[in-house]
């Protein structure tokens, strides 16, 4: 990493400004009307990586979306090479040589890699240049060292490979400015390093790169300049050489999050979850023959690290009943629960804080009270003989809302759709934990929350741990996993490749495991 910084050319004010934003503001219409971006000035020059740093919800993605033409802006001006332009759609952005890699994958899973690239091709409608594109992609793959077979269907690729396809897709069109929104979230640390090399090669060709991240070590690994964003406002732009990690952290997060949360030592005896040689459905091809095995004890927090797409969601589905098990067993609190229904797991006391909270965690079109009761409506006192007791549901919802500081205008008038992500997460946390369940599966529980809310959530988990709850914490954020976990396991291609005590864990070791442990052997 250090030698990369070494070869970085010094950022220079003399090089050409490729893309510039002047006084950009953005407000989303709706009930919670406020500006999400306020008067942002931002530019990217030829041959530099300009990083946008900020915590989740600071407005980084919104800036990138506006610069690429995906979102409209409320106010301000965009200039390409000094000329004012109007960007009404990504099409306009591409026409001006601006391309963006979005955080969520913008791929058609049913298409091959080459076909995905071809979607953006500016070719006559009745032509079909698939073979030519495949060959060009082969060249591109060789040139940048992004290993992907252009002839394979995207749905058959791993998450990391799909991320590479996104970058290939963009590179194919040879943009002058490349916007990358959290491109490393699906990559192992080693893959991320590989990506940084690619980015460097691109800046060497005179391209300008906007890199979005909330991870400090990445910022230092790749940036020439950095702009810090907080709550929609720019907190200053500076060359990376003129700042340091502490300074940036303070600017970005306001308060620093602790490295390792202290907690009373407990001797773990009873198993809350036992997973034995588990191969979840959908992982039959990928998983090792021995499957996946681990045990989670009562009163323990087990962190599960790993690059997204290595079987986390399938594992969660298997131990919450959301989808079936191909082989192996799942035992919860001493009872074998393999292939039981979600309802059975809920009854057993397995709480689940899902990653996709808007899609899975709540029903957006239903009211706040109904969502708070989403798992309890069928139990007394919330219903009797299948007839709902609205008074009880209201009383309960009021309690949850106030206990978890959720900001909601009305329990029976407000559809959850209009709530912010943070408030939705508060409702979910409240709903899943108010009974102090014996088992909690928490997937990315603090993603998108501000530092204060993160701290509250962590304290909540430690309090639940103290009361004997077993918590499985799945997160791609190594900081979180390392701060909270009693033990840390690393999942890779459907198997656990290593387990370490939380106190003894270090980033490098975990990173090697996340890549399957193979890269460390090669290195």
């Amino acid at each position, binding site marked *: 990493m250090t030698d990369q910084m070494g070869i970085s050319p010094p950022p220079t004010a003399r090089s050409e400004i490729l893309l510039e934003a002047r006084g950009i503001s953005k407000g989303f219409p709706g009930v919670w009307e406020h500006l999400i971006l306020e008067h942002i000035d931002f530019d990217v020059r030829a041959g530099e990586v300009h990083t946008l740093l900020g915590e989740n919800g600071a407005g980084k993605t919104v800036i990138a979306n506006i610069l690429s033409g995906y979102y409209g802006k409320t106010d301000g001006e965009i200039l390409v090479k000094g000329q004012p332009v109007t960007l009404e759609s990504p099409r306009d952005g591409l026409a001006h040589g601006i391309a963006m890699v979005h955080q969520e994958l*913008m*791929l*058609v899973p049913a298409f091959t890699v080459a076909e995905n690239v071809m*979607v953006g*091709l500016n070719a006559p409608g009745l032509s*079909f240049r698939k073979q030519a594109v495949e060959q060009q992609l082969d060249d591109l793959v060789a040139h940048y060292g992004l290993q992907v077979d252009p002839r394979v269907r995207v749905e058959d690729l791993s998450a990391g490979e799909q991320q590479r396809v996104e970058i290939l897709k963009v590179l194919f069109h040879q943009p002058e400015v490349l916007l990358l929104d959290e491109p490393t979230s699906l990559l192992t640390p080693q893959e991320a390093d590989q990506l940084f090399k690619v980015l460097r090669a691109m800046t060497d060709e005179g391209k300008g790169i906007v890199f979005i991240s909330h991870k400090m070590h990445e910022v230092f690994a790749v940036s020439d300049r950095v702009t810090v964003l907080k709550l929609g406002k720019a907190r200053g732009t500076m060359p990376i050489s003129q700042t340091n990690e502490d300074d940036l952290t303070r600017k970005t997060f306001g308060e620093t999050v602790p490295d390792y949360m202290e907690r009373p030592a407990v001797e773990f005896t009873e198993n809350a979850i036992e997973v034995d040689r588990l191969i979840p459905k959908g992982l039959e091809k990928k998983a090792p023959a021995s499957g996946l095995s681990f045990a989670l004890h009562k009163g323990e927090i087990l962190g599960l690290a790993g690059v997204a797409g290595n079987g986390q969601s399938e594992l969660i589905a298997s131990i919450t009943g959301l989808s079936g098990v191909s082989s192996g067993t799942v035992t919860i609190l001493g009872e074998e629960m393999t292939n039981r229904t979600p309802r059975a797991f809920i009854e057993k006391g397995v709480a689940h804080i899902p990653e996709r909270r808007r899609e899975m965690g709540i029903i957006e079109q239903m009211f706040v009270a109904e969502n708070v009761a989403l798992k309890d409506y069928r139990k007394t006192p919330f219903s009797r003989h299948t007839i709902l007791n609205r008074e009880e549901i209201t009383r309960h919802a009021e309690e949850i809302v106030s206990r978890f500081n959720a900001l909601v205008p009305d329990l029976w008038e407000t559809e959850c759709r209009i709530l912010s992500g943070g408030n939705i997460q508060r409702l979910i946390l409240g709903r899943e934990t108010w009974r102090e369940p014996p088992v909690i599966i928490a997937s990315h529980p603090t993603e998108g929350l501000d530092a204060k809310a993160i701290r509250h959530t962590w304290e909540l988990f430690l309090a639940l741990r103290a009361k004997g709850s077993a918590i499985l914490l799945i997160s791609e954020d190594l900081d979180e996993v390392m701060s909270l976990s009693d033990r840390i396991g690393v999942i890779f291609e459907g198997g656990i490749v290593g387990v370490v005590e939380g106190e003894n864990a270090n980033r490098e070791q975990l990173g090697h495991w996340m890549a399957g442990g193979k890269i460390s052997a090669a290195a």
Partner: protein
Amino acid sequence: MELAHIWGILFISLHAMVPITLAAIGETIEESAGLFNIGLEGILLLGALAGAIGAEASGSATMGLMAGIATGGLIGLLFGVLSTTLRGSQLITGVGINMFALGFVALMLTLLGAPGFHSVPRAVQVPLIPLGIGNLSPMVLVTVFLAVVVWWVLRRTQLGLWIRAVGENPAAADVAGLRVNTLRLGTAIAAGMLAGLAGAYLSVDWFGAVTKEITAGRGFIALATVVFSGLNPLLALLGGFIFGLFEGLATWISTYPAIKKIIPWQFVAMAPYIITLLVVAGAIGRVRFPKGLGVPYLRE
């Protein structure tokens, strides 16, 4: 059964295939792009009326078919604008189109002459190709040709790739620089034109007349054929043919004295529907539809 009978059934099936398949491949185009138009029946009906009027007013069968295409395109445009730019519900629009067409066609027939019926003079009907073993409508060949063309465009061209991308993942298509709503609108118009042609075929070719109930549910059968075909225009050809075959066969065998004594005609008449249901349930099973089907695309 003699050979002549087999030819007879074959020709009935081919002619019955035309409207179903034409409408189905049109629907395939727009469903590939993410639009679901349940208003096919209505477009067929309006196309039949326009075809009859167009053929008679211009004195040419081709112009009649063109009138059907134009009318279908217009309704497709209406459907497209409502379901893309205005982000309306596709289902509601489709149901509305059906209801509107049912009333409008009957109304026009009443207002333009005899209520409920209008015949197309033989001279301005599509001339058939005599093959010795039977008469073949050139529209059968047009249908086969169009099915192949649509298959080719959807599967083997850049345009088809764009259409399918818009249906599968409109956000990805948008980010890649495609005009999602424009493309969808285009497919809606194309689908409307094909359904309009199918309708005009009913009046200008197959029956030589338009009545207020001329479609007799064929628009809905076309919808079923799209599911049957799994969005493959070539299979839609087969689906239309199979349905036409069983429908023709049912009517055909109901004229045979021997069969009539064994099975009541009502059960023979049910057969095409039962068989379609069984085929869809058995052989085809689950069909994968575009992920963006039926959902209006909204960027922010």
